[in-house]
């Protein structure tokens, strides 16, 4: 599962809306494409990339590293 990254959260929200509208989600059982991840540094954001919808403005990465997720005892 690839992701789009950005320092501008609104860009990812726009991508979310683009996918939701194109996929015709009913807004009740399915309300959006995906949740937006916030990096612990507070500066970076990411969202899952839909396999059908690509945008050139966003940076694509293959996966999010462990630094994106708060550490916890395992």
């Amino acid at each position, binding site marked *: 599962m690839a992701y789009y990254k950005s320092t501008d959260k609104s860009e990812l929200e726009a991508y979310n809306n683009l996918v939701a509208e194109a*996929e015709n989600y*009913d807004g*009740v*059982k*399915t*309300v959006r*494409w*995906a949740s937006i991840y916030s990096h612990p540094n507070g500066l970076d954001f990411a969202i899952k990339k839909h396999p059908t919808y690509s945008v050139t403005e966003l940076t694509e990465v293959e996966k999010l590293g*462990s630094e994106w997720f708060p550490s*916890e005892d395992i």
Partner: protein
Amino acid sequence: MLGLGLSITIGGVITPYYVVVANAFRDRVEADGGTVESMSCLKKDLKVLNPVKPTVYKGLLNYYSGAAAAYSLRLLDNTYTGDVISVRNASTGQSTDIGFANNELDVAALETFCNGADGYVTAWYDQSGNNKHMFQSDAASQPKIVSSGTVIKDGNNKPVVEFEETVGQWMEVETSIGLTVNFLLTAVVTPTTNTNTWGVLLNGATADNRIRLYQNNTGQVRLSGTIYNYVASLSIGSLNVLSFQRTNTTSLEAYTNGVQKLNTTLSSAWSQIINRLGANHADPPAADHFLSAKVSELIAWDDTTDRAGVETNINDFY
């Protein structure tokens, strides 16, 4: 016996077989020039010969009632009148509820609805009567149940809900469910890999309570922050019946396919253990904690329900 309790349909009317036999007997007697003194007596006599009673379906919860939450693709309680799941058609974007046919998921209705497309689960309804339904409203995280129009099934040809680690699919209840002094939690799961990083089966509202099935056949339970690892001995690609039980205030036992794999001391309740299925507590969940498995059933009782009896029922069905 003659099987007189069966029925047949004549001209659109369902007729008990003993009536058919009585009428045939009368016709034969009359054809030979005789008469039947009383048809009502004849029918009554024939009915008594084989009083077959209609079979009433009983689900697992009819035998082991009082579940705190119960998710399955089979009917668990014959008094439950709701649906099994809600599914989104990936082509149209629209969702619909799917019910039961012959006490199991209505596969034909589901495949008709998906019409060749993939289908994703938006809701898995709680059959316990406690309305602890599981939901997933993010399309990217909804587990899959139909692939290109065909319902995904396990090796026993039963439908399953598929959670893929690499996609990150999971579900969540609106209000977490806690288990207190004595409890039994059973899951029918087909792991699809033995290499996933931190596959979470169930997670509470915090990191302190969870069940993991992850790499190298490791099982892990975490209760109020204390971790217990054990060798789960899972059969990858095959159906496994997992049970977690506490029958007194001081021990927790974990079983795989009826064999005890963990027996450890504990003294606390399993607070809010049922919050998420397939992901950890983080929001959004950590990408390396997703489950790699197909899930058929998950039931929890907050009491001393008979584990062996429940497992027998599960094995008989699956």
